[in-house]
């Protein structure tokens, strides 16, 4: 009897630790590409969607004008679909846009164009001036803001094979962006190529994560700056055991870090990690409970059913109130590419859930996710049905 009760208790504990899958509203199509047009969701930090109040903003790059340009569309509370796409970049080819919510239905968008990185405050009713930040060449910009008025940007600047990560404080006054002088995030002397940075604010400071090649292979590093102070020394985020087999090289690869914070003490970093290289990239994560000053051990996000196929395009979000982390990605465990997500509650990652509307025939990929203030998860992704590419959106009911 005791044994039965023990098993029952353990089973109940397991069930309680498992999150239920989210229920989603029917997906919407934001835009569909004409023949010869290609839509990309490839922001550094995978922040292509943001929610300000009850307005959703989505940014992407496509070549509908004949060259790559940056577009935005809004989902307004009293409308049944998204607004028509508006171009927000300048006249040259532009790439890798990101978006972050400001207050009062405003958004801060950033992108790369003409070897510079650019910023612009936007809302459904107005577009601010375009502002350049840092020196050329610069690329892979990512922006973040919190509910205490902190706003900042990180990007990769410098000539090829000598790129390093820079940070600037930003101030968005109405539709004007003021940029503070850029500073190097990592001032160590042994720097090598650094790329694909992402930024988050927490209660005690700010966190930056990036790809770093100083160890002879690509690793994920992070650095923390306590409020009002410079960035502290970098920390490796992705754990790995130096291989005893020289044929495996300096080490396995890891790439494209993403970060999310609940504006308090909790932060989650995720990335694609090839430590189990036979099946390509897995999604790994690390969680900080001190606002990013330090991260806990690495956690594999996807479940065992995703182990035999590579995972791509990991994105992360964190719900402030509940401290629920979500990570989404795409993989081909169902033969064609589908979007999956996992929720982290009570210190454990859930089973993998298929994102309703982003599975089945066709190729669903490149998710970007964000929680709103009510804890609803908003998702955008690409849907490629036989070469016809659509940008799709769904919102959870939670």
């Amino acid at each position, binding site marked *: 009897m005791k044994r039965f009760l023990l098993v029952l208790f353990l089973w109940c504990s397991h069930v309680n630790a498992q999150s239920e899958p989210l229920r989603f509203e029917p997906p919407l199509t934001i835009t569909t590409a004409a023949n010869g047009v290609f839509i990309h969701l*490839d922001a550094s930090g995978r922040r292509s969607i943001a929610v300000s109040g009850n307005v959703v903003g989505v940014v992407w790059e496509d070549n509908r004008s004949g060259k790559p340009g940056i577009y935005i569309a809004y989902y307004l509370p009293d409308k049944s679909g998204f607004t028509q796409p508006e171009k927000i970049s300048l006249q040259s080819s532009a790439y890798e846009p990101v978006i972050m919510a400001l207050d009062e239905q405003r958004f801060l968008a950033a992108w790369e164009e003409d070897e510079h990185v650019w910023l612009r405050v936007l809302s459904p009713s107005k577009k601010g001036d375009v502002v350049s930040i840092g020196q050329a060449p610069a690329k892979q910009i990512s922006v973040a803001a919190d509910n205490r008025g902190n706003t900042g940007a990180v990007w990769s600047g410098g000539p090829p094979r000598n790129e390093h990560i820079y940070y600037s404080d930003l101030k968005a006054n109405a539709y004007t962006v003021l940029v503070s002088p850029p500073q190097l995030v990592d001032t160590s002397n042994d720097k090598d190529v650094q790329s694909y940075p992402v930024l988050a604010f927490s209660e005690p400071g700010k966190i930056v994560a990036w790809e770093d090649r100083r160890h002879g292979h*690509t690793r994920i590093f992070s650095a923390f700056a306590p409020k009002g102070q410079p960035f502290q020394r970098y920390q490796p985020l992705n754990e790995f055991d130096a*291989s005893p087999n020289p044929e495996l090289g300096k080490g396995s*690869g890891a790439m494209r870090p993403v970060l999310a914070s609940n504006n308090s003490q909790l932060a989650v970093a995720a990335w694609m990690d090839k430590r189990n290289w036979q099946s390509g990239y897995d999604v790994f994560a690390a969680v900080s409970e001190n606002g990013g000053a330090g991260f806990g051990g690495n956690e594999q996000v996807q479940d065992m059913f995703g182990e035999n196929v*590579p995972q791509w395009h990991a994105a992360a979000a964190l719900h402030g109130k509940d401290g629920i982390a979500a990570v989404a990605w795409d993989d081909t465990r169902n033969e064609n590419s589908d979007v999956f997500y996992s929720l982290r509650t009570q210190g454990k990652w859930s089973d993998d859930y298929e994102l309703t509307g982003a599975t089945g025939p066709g190729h669903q990929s490149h998710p970007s996710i964000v929680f709103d203030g009510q804890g609803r998860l908003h998702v955008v992704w690409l849907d490629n049905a036989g070469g016809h590419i659509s940008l799709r959106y769904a919102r959870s009911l939670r």
Partner: protein
Amino acid sequence: MRYLILIALLFADIAFADPPDNYPFLSFDSGLQQAQQEKKHIFVYFGRYGCGFCAKTNIESFSDPELKKRYVKNYILVYADAESGNRLTLPSGERLTEAELGAQLNVFATPVFLYLDMNGEVLFRAPGFKTVEEFVEFDRYIQEGHYKTKSINEFLSKR
């Protein structure tokens, strides 16, 4: 002397895991253009920074002068870094990064060697470390036109 060259290659390649020295590797889009002009097949080497098997292939296989002569003569050579944000343009007009190209082609463990026709269609893929002899057989499969009638496994089993 050969020993010294091998040591030099070892250090150079482990440091950067780039394509082997003194091969005329091009970016993917430049290679596609050149293949159209020269009506040649394309050999794509997908590597990764710090990739040990890439370095091993460079040292043990691509250091062979006869293999180099054969591949430089028969192919437009392309190198892509599977983690790179370097941009390229596909024949469709799509602009994307080398890493995204790798995702589209499901390149998830490096090295991966792709043999393409001059239009960029994949004829077959060879993942992992390959010896000089294997590269020679792959070249025969392509240059003698066996790929039109047989899979690579059928070709290799009936040699």
